[in-house]
Structure formats: structure tokens, C-alpha cells
């Protein structure tokens, strides 16, 4: 795709998105902008001033301060890129694994489908958080572990989705034409089927990002996510229960950032879903 094509498609996407989806897109853009300027907040986010501990929101500290006197606004801003990036990469991992498993099952059918569909079913039988906790706690703590743990527990949903889409597309004329022209199977899957099932997969991925951000926050909140100094929103929130009686702001603001982000991605996904079912874009 040339930049011109991408620009045209982006314009088409904007036009077909419902109002709520456009608003969500603006919020998502804003969050990535905050990520871009977040290094400015990193010094204030880590500056410990015990004499200022547990200060309620004020002009100097709009979100208040935490148990070590760090400015909560700075901490929430500094955590933004981490939460967004982990959510995005985990969703991509999930989508890639899901697409590979789902498209192979859907394209070949028969025994491959039977085996892979059982595999999807097996993983779906486990409570997601059970698997997530086991992976996150038993593997060495690092951002990569968190990303892998989330990606490896959520792919079955994407796989089911990809399977259904590939199943619909595998006997269409363009696929048969590619096959008749002698294209190899990986080529058919990646060059012909993938672009055509991309729109619905994108919807699934946008919901996936929202879910992955929540999952990372939940893991860090429970204390088995990222190792201590790297505070994501969930990590900041994990200190809140201990001070819930005297410092409500420690719970309110990091959670608000999380809620805003998750609802923006969900709303964007919902908008994309509507736009793609109306068959006007991609």
C-alpha cells in the first residue's frame, strides 16, 4: 500500500465511523500524545518527598500525592506509554497466534480443523485469569512475560474469529483463482486471505487492546505484573487498598485513566464493527 492509498482509506474510515467512534479515536490519539510527552513527567513521577505524602488534590498536585509523596498526576502520565504499549503488543501477539491457528483450521478443514478447534476449546475451558496468573507468576517477571502471558491466554477468541472468516473466504473466486495460478498455501493465506479478513480482525484486535490493557492492569494490581519500579496504572492502583481509608485519590485517578483508555478502545472497536458490517470501508 502506498501512503496515498493509506490516506484515502483512513479518510474513508473516518467518514464511516459513527460519532461515538470518532470521539473514541480522538481520545485514543490524545492518549498516544500524552505518551509522547510523558518523558517530561518521569522526573516528577519518581521524586520522593516524604513531607508531602498523602496530600489531597490541590493546585500544586491536581491528582494529589501518593504514600511516598510522589505527584500522582506525573505518575499517571508517566505510566501511560507503558500501559498502552503493553496492551497493544499483547493484542498483536494474540492476533498473530489466533490468525495462524484459526486460518490454518479454517483453510484446511478436516483433521487440522478438528485438532486445532479442540485446542481452542481446551484453552477456553480454563478461567483466563487462572492461566494468566500462573504464567505471569511462574515465568520471570518482565514486560515480555506480561505481554506473552496475556497474548497466550487470549488468542483462542481471535482464532475462532479468524477461522470463521477464512472459512467464508476460502472458496470464493479470488482464492480459487490464486490457487489455480499456482500460489503456495502460505502465500494464499497471507497475501490473499489476510487482507480480505483484515477488517473484521481489526475489530477483534481493537477489543483485544482494551482487554489486554485491563488484563495488564489487573495483573499489576494483584502484584504479579511488571516488576516494582516500572509503575503502570495497575501498579499505581495496587498501593491504593492500603490507604483507602485516608487517600481516596490514590484509587480514583489512576483508575480513571484506565477507565478512559479501556472505554475509548472499546468504543473505537464498536465503531469499527459497525462501519465494517455496513461494508463501506476496507
Amino acid at each position, binding site marked *: 500500500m502506498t501512503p496515498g492509498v493509506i490516506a484515502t482509506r483512513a479518510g474513508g474510515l473516518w467518514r464511516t465511523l459513527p460519532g461515538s467512534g470518532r470521539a473514541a479515536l480522538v481520545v485514543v490519539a490524545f492518549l498516544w500524545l500524552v505518551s509522547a510527552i510523558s518523558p517530561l513527567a518521569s522526573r516528577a513521577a519518581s521524586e520522593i518527598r516524604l513531607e508531602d505524602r498523602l496530600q489531597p488534590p490541590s493546585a500544586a498536585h491536581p491528582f494529589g500525592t501518593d504514600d511516598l509523596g510522589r505527584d500522582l498526576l506525573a505518575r499517571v502520565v508517566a505510566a501511560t506509554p507503558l500501559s498502552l504499549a503493553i496492551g497493544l503488543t499483547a493484542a498483536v501477539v494474540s492476533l498473530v497466534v489466533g490468525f495462524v491457528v484459526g486460518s490454518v483450521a479454517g483453510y484446511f478443514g478436516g483433521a487440522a480443523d478438528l485438532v486445532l478447534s479442540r485446542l481452542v476449546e481446551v484453552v477456553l475451558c480454563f*478461567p*483466563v*485469569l487462572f492461566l494468566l496468573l500462573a504464567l505471569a507468576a*511462574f515465568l520471570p517477571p518482565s514486560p515480555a512475560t506480561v505481554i506473552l502471558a496475556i497474548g497466550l491466554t487470549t488468542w483462542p477468541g481471535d482464532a475462532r474469529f479468524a477461522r470463521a472468516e477464512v472459512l467464508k473466504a476460502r472458496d470464493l473466486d479470488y482464492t480459487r483463482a490464486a490457487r489455480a495460478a499456482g500460489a503456495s498455501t502460505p502465500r494464499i493465506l497471507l497475501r490473499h486471505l489476510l487482507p480480505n479478513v483484515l477488517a473484521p480482525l481489526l475489530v477483534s484486535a481493537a477489543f483485544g487492546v482494551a482487554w489486554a490493557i485491563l488484563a495488564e492492569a489487573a495483573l499489576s494490581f494483584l*502484584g504479579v505484573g511488571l516488576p516494582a519500579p516500572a509503575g503502570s496504572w495497575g501498579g499505581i492502583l495496587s498501593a491504593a487498598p492500603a490507604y483507602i481509608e485516608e487517600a481516596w485519590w490514590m484509587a480514583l485517578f489512576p483508575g480513571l485513566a484506565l477507565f478512559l483508555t479501556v*472505554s475509548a478502545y472499546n468504543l473505537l472497536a464498536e465503531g469499527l464493527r459497525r462501519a465494517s458490517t455496513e461494508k463501506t470501508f476496507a
Partner: protein
Amino acid sequence: MIRYLSRRVLLAAPTLLGIVILVFLLLHLAPGSPVTAGGESSRRVSQRAAEEMRRTYGLDRPLPERFGKWLGRVARLDFGESFVDHRPVLERVREAFPYTLELNGLALLLTLGIAIPLGVAAGGRPEGPLDRASGAMLFALYSLPSFWAALLLQALFSIRLRWLPLYGVVSDSAPPGWSGLADRLAHLALPVACLTYGSLAFYARLVRASVAEARQADFVLAARARGLSRRQALWKHAFRNALLPLITVLGLVLPGLLSGSVIIERIFAWPGLGRLYFDSILSRDYPVVLALSLLGAIATLFFTFLADVAYALADPRVRDGTIE
């Protein structure tokens, strides 16, 4: 019907095998050998526990033999002893189970009790005022992280207003009888609310979508033409048709409930299965972790099978074998 059900059982058998293999692999994913359980963060396993582990899992034997032996034990529901208190794993699971059942049973009843009428009403008039308002509200609730909501509810109802207890199952000073029941209900209120609101959107939207689709169908229009009221046509005809997808997703309700329980039971100090699982993860109590994972997954498989049976009973076409 028999054919349909036997096909379901045949498909469930390899899934069951897969679940057992995955749990077995999970054990070997644990850092180092499960007996040495190395690493800074892990709890040191006592000599006795290590022996127990060796005996239970036969770690000196080759892998296939080990798997066979483990399978034999698991089939007899022998999950060994907990590393933490050396009591049988099954005993600890049995103790925690009623708490989780109470919490999630109430939450599920409440969820369906709100989601079904709301979904039918919203689906009866798509894009109507109720549909739009409930849609926006459910969407916000769907994106609300449960652990955050739990903290805010605690801050508001337990600390600021002092209406409800902060956490726990029952007060130390709880009187017996009716006022004791009130005390228990007060303890249940916040965790049940947190478990309910998130799944509400999912079920309400599902019911809404099926009802909205069915209300234009011939059989509903025919019911209206025969003189049934709008209400009767919606509940007796459109909603009954919407029951089918609801039954299917209810078969898969268990993993979500257990997942939600891990977080909520931790915040509200509720001694159920989710809390047991989380504590066991932190203390590297592998026998408990494996038993809960296995039991949870098998229970889910069983529930999906029950859902298939219910589906067949509810849909005559499946019962007669006209469709799969």
C-alpha cells in the same frame, strides 16, 4: 437426540484429554524443577514437601510413565497435600467452594434477573429511548475495571457513608438469627455488585440482539396478527427464541465467574476458590494450583455439555436431528 448427544460426548473426550495434558504441562512450566522451585521470589519448599511432591508426581520417572501415574491419581481425585498446611488439597477446595458458590450464584441470578427484562425491553424497541440509554450505560459499565469499581465502592459505602462493611464474610459480633442474616447480606452487597455489573452488559446485549432480530420474524408478526399483545408476543415468542443463544453462552459462564472471583475475593477478603487460587499462586502451592485449574476446566467442559443437552431439549429441530 441420542445421536446428537453421543456426538457431543465424542467431541468432549479429546478436549478433556487436552485439558489434562495442559495442566500437566503447566506443572512443568513452573520455574526449575517443581521440587527445587528455585528463584529469589519463590518460597523454599521444605524437605518433606519435596518428598511428597516426588512421590505424588514421580519426578524421577520418565515423562510418559509420570503422566500415566498422575492421571491415575487425578482420576481418583487424589491431588496430594497442600505445601502450605499439609492438608489434602481436596479438603481445602471443598472448604472454599461454598463461599464462591454463594457469591457467584447470587451475582449470576442478579445479572440474569436484570439483563433479561432489560434486554427484552430494549430489543422490543430498537433505537428507542430505553435502548439508547441502557446501551450507553451498559457500555460504560462494561469498560469499568472491577477492581477499580470495588475500591471506589469501598471508599464511598464503607468509609465515607459507613453503610456497609469494608470486607469479610461476617462480623465478629454478628448476632444469630435474622439480624445475623442482615449482617451477611451487608457483607455480600459490594462484592456481588462488582461481580454483577460487568457481565450485565454482555447478557443484556445478547438478549437484546436476539429479541430485536426475532421481533421482525414471521412467527412474532403472526402472533401479533392473532391478537396477542405486544408484551405477550415479545415474551412468549421473541424471547423464547432468544433463549437458545443464551443457553449456549451460559454453558461457558464458569471460567468468567472464576476469573472475576480471583480479583473480587482478594479485595473483599472472601475465603473462596478465587482467593485460594491466588494465595496458592503466591505461595507456589503447586498441588492446589493444579487441582483448581483442572477442576475448573473440567467443570466448564461439563457445563458446556449440559448446555448442549439443554439446547437440544429447547430446540425441537436439534432433538429430532433435523439440524446439527
